């Protein structure tokens, strides 16, 4: 537990001091509880999401960084994207099986921004309606449902 908090402190410091473009940690959210962060994202210029504002929620378990954080979009504006469900769940392999402890909040945010940036057509995943009705609250269980081929 202590090592997880230590690492989150370090990450928070680094992101506050030198925030990556379009990414900003909501300081107030982390001052309440260290294991839940809110991060504000802004769609990159020249992309379909230019100037749109989004919020990401990070939830860290006690095994972080050996275990990936739970990351979902939050709030009124959930980006319309083929890998983002309308309940905020994101289908991104680094959030489940491709997670590595060398990744960080910053690298996850940058991956999500670049996932948005490479989008060519704003649409929901084809199975959005069923998924949102049947999925677990924890998006980390998504892969079993969505990537059925890995079972």
């Amino acid at each position, binding site marked *: 537990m202590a*090592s997880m908090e*230590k*690492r989150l402190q*370090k*990450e928070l410091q680094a992101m506050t001091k*030198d925030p990556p473009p379009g990414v900003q940690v909501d300081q107030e959210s982390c001052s309440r509880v260290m294991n839940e962060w809110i991060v504000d994202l802004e769609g990159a210029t020249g992309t379909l999401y230019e100037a749109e504002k989004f919020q990401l929620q990070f939830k860290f378990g006690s*095994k972080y*960084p*050996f*275990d990936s954080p739970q990351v979902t979009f939050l709030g009124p504006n959930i980006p319309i994207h083929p890998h983002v469900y309308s309940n905020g769940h994101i289908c991104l392999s680094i959030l489940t099986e491709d997670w*590595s*402890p*060398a*990744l960080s909040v910053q690298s996850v945010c940058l991956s999500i921004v670049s996932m948005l940036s490479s989008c060519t057509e704003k649409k929901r995943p084809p199975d959005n309606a069923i998924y949102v009705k049947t999925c677990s609250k924890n998006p980390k269980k998504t892969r079993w449902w969505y990537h059925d081929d890995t079972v």
Partner: protein
Amino acid sequence: MSAETTSQNNNSPSSEDNNTAEEAAGTYECNICLETANDAVVSMCGHLFCWPCLHQWLETRRSRQTCPVCKAGISKDKVIPIYGRGNPNPQDPREKLPPRPPGQRSEPEGTGAFPNFGFGGDGGFQFSFGIGAFPFGIFASTFNFNDGRPAAPAPGSPQEAEEQFLSKVFLWVGIIFIFWLLIA
């Protein structure tokens, strides 16, 4: 480094010094805990970790051990401990943690003699040899058929004790081997 940071540095020279010092330290940060690496090891791909951090990661993903930074293959035997100056008796950090229990398995030749198990099940000695090692199995049965094998040693003789000991050893090897086959 963004332009913004550079301009801040120009405003306050002391913070520039801090940054330089931090960057130098950053070179030797563990890629997992982000602290200066402690009991440092470096992977073949050149990535630095504290051994305790890397060990925990390897235990987390036992079936797929990859470098957290570049996803190259990585394992306990393929990392190099780093010893700095000032410690006259450096200890390999990989030996500090409780070593993993070694896997138990018999010699691979045993596979060839496996069918003997069914036939020799009633006789302690042949049974054990039969599954113990392939060449011995042949040897034992050949001698049995030709009756060329010396008569069983007298009870209580040192020879008999030795045979019983061997028999027990091979019996255990056999059991472990069968168990291994079942779980493999």
